């Protein structure tokens, strides 16, 4: 029984092969050897997995910076497929940054989660969004016949989270609703447009483009809205609980407009009452 030639140096012998000089009938020693070999091969496969992932982390700092900037600049070129870097370092770091920002937002908004920690929720939300939406979009892209691989999808969506990070970092600290909506439209919109442009350039057919890009844009923008309002300092929520549910609905929408409109309504009502 000869060991087949190994491709990589230092790999454990394949299953079924025994080191030279060990008798086949040694029961106890044989089982020990089996266990040891299994553990060794498991450890080796872990390292092999790291080696599989390594090409996706092969970047320079300058490249990462350039890609971060590019993620905010939509390119209007839909005749020719745009390039997507199949790289996971930047997306992964952006997701972790988003986790940190979410933790900050949760702490300042006094979010209390009964079953589980804030950390777990933040990590679950961010990674769930990144992996879940990427796989969903990949599936959809497969159905719509778009030319994109899973790694490219992950990279595209991950860099798209850069806009989210900026928006949330600013608006968790500066509490203006108008500011958030401006950021939501401009920064979130730019990063969404970038992704949509890339997807459009890689899809053929109007219906397919519409389905793919509509889904992605809706999911991406709604996720930002959700993150903002779920963990923002809950001012409107407190107002709701304090003043009861029988309020006219428009008073709960924004903070600065209702005060004015309320005052106007009150004065007009008083004026009408006085004239009557």
């Amino acid at each position, binding site marked *: 029984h000869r060991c087949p030639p190994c491709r990589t140096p230092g790999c454990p012998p394949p299953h079924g092969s025994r080191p030279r000089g060990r008798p086949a009938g040694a029961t106890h020693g044989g089982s020990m050897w089996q266990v040891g070999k299994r553990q060794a091969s498991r450890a080796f496969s872990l390292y092999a997995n790291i080696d599989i992932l*390594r090409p996706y*982390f092969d970047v320079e*700092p300058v490249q990462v910076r350039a890609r971060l900037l590019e993620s905010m600049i939509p390119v209007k070129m839909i005749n020719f497929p745009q390039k997507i870097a199949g790289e996971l*370092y930047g997306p992964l770091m952006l997701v*972790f940054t988003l986790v*940190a920002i979410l933790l900050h937002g949760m702490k300042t908004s006094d979010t209390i989660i009964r079953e589980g*920690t804030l*950390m777990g929720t933040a990590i679950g939300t961010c990674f769930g969004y990144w992996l879940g939406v990427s796989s969903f979009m990949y599936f959809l892209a497969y159905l719509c016949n778009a030319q994109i691989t899973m790694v490219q999808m992950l990279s595209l969506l991950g860099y798209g989270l850069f806009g989210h990070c900026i928006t949330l970092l600013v608006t968790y600290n500066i509490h203006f609703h108008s500011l958030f909506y401006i950021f939501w439209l401009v920064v979130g919109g730019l990063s969404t447009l970038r992704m949509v442009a890339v997807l459009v350039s890689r899809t053929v057919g109007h219906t397919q483009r519409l389905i793919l890009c509509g889904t992605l844009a809706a999911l991406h923008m709604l996720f930002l809205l959700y993150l903002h309002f779920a963990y923002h300092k809950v001012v409107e929520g407190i107002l709701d609980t304090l003043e009861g549910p029988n309020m006219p609905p428009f008073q709960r929408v924004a903070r600065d407009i209702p005060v004015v409109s309320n005052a106007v309504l009150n004065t007009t009502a008083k004026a009408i009452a006085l004239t009557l």
Partner: protein
Amino acid sequence: MRDLKAVGKKFVHVMYPRKSSALLRDWDLWGPLVLCVALALMLQGGSADSKDDGGPQFAEVFVIIWFGAVVITLNSKLLGGTISFFQSLCVLGYCVMPLTVAMLVCRLVLLAGGGTVSFIVRLIVVGAMFAWSTLASTAFLADSQPPNRKALVVYPIFLFYFVISWMILTFTPQ
């Protein structure tokens, strides 16, 4: 006893970060464990009275430190670093020490009283210790990285210590 001496020597190494490989050569996880437990206990202490807050806080600190260290280590390995898994874990754990000191100072300052002055003092202390932690761990870990990628390795370390120091800064006993 010999181990205790080794742990103490490593503490000194973190306090005076020099380019030496003593922290890398013989790693142990006792120091990180002690530091992590101390930090978590001090962070928990404030909310120990209220029943539902205490548990998650302790667990949260623990999880953040270990999970973060593992992620940084995997990241540095993926970027092509030549450092073993536990060596990196050991360095990152020992470099939490300035932040533990900062936490101790913060508690003492908070004992003295609250207000803007105490917040500014805490901000300065935590900021300085955060810079110290980051610099110390970078000094130890950067040598094992290819020189053109140092920034990519430093960023997650920065984020990791930033989250911890931010937790320390916002901590207030109830």
